[in-house]
């Protein structure tokens, strides 16, 4: 049992390191190949974790090879669009200038119902509202509505809007968040002064947000 515990801890640390090395791209925009590699790594790691008769190295070596292959392939894909298209596929137009591309749908083995489901998930309830619809290599849809169906923006309405920058959380559960403070150009002194003015300390704050215009909001902790 002790061996199982030690092996599990070692493999846990190793898999965490592996996923970190593969990078943020691996976690956020997972392509099909990346999803497969992640699943395989999880599966390979679990076998020597359970079976103590199997050397730990039989789990570690394939993971090392998979990570290396994934990094090398992703670098090659960055340099060559041909390889990128070969490995990840390329975007396909499903609706071109308001016309449904039925042949493309058929070649993707996608039904109109599938298309409508995905459009509804993007907030589009009528296919006729769509000017362009593209299916991306990661399977997600990108949609552009017809001009008359698009919401007008501030520029089109000629409305002046103040640039407040990003609204960032500067205190979370009584802790200052340095990176967020940098994002909205505030410092600890400014926050402490604000809190003093409100008769609070940082430990009384559940969430405090601020923006570049020094506008803020505070949610107090419930005691």
């Amino acid at each position, binding site marked *: 049992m002790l061996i199982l515990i030690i092996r599990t801890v070692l493999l846990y640390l190793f898999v965490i390191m592996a996923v970190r090395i593969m990078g943020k791209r691996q976690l956020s925009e997972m392509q099909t190949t990346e999803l497969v590699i992640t699943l395989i790594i999880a599966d390979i790691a679990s076998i020597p974790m359970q079976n103590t*008769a199997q*050397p730990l*190295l*039989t789990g570690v*070596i394939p993971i090392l*090879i998979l990570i290396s292959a994934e*990094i090398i392939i992703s*670098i090659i894909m960055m340099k060559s669009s041909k390889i990128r298209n070969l490995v990840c596929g390329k975007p396909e137009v499903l609706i071109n200038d308001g016309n449904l591309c039925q042949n493309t749908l058929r070649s993707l083995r996608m039904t109109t119902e599938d298309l409508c489901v995905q459009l509804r998930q993007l907030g589009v309830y009528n296919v006729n509202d769509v000017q362009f619809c593209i299916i991306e290599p990661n399977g997600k849809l990108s949609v552009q509505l017809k001009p008359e169906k698009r919401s007008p923006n501030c520029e089109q309405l000629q409305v002046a809007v103040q640039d407040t920058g990003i609204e960032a959380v500067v205190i979370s559960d009584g802790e200052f968040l340095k990176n967020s403070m940098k994002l909205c150009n505030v410092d600890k002194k400014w926050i402490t002064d604000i809190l003093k003015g409100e008769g609070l300390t940082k430990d009384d704050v559940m969430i405090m947000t601020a923006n570049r215009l020094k506008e803020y909001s505070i949610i107090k902790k419930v005691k």
Partner: protein
Amino acid sequence: MNRITIAVLMLLIAGIICGCEFYTVSNSVIQYTADLDTIKNLSERGDFDKANEMTDDLLKNWIKTTRRLDKYLYHDYIDEITLHMSALPVCTENQDSSAVKTHVEEIKIQLTSLKESELPYLHNIL
């Protein structure tokens, strides 16, 4: 560190581990096969005292070697060989040359298969 460097480094580590494994397994198999042949020849000649001495040493050395081999190979394969090897001293003590020969042949086959299974032949890959 650059990710490509890490990838190359990982491939290198994997390569080094594979090399070490192959070297250890291959050397052990060659050494033990030679020792087993000597034991078989001694028992066939009737020199059981010498054969007994050698089997004792062989078993002791094998136990040490298993610690290295267990890092690379399935423990079940190693345990099976250990089981056959531990039967050898009893056979030499009983001066049973046919039993010695049988065990030696069995161990040799297992050792050869251990080495062969590590070679990148098509039948091993498939």
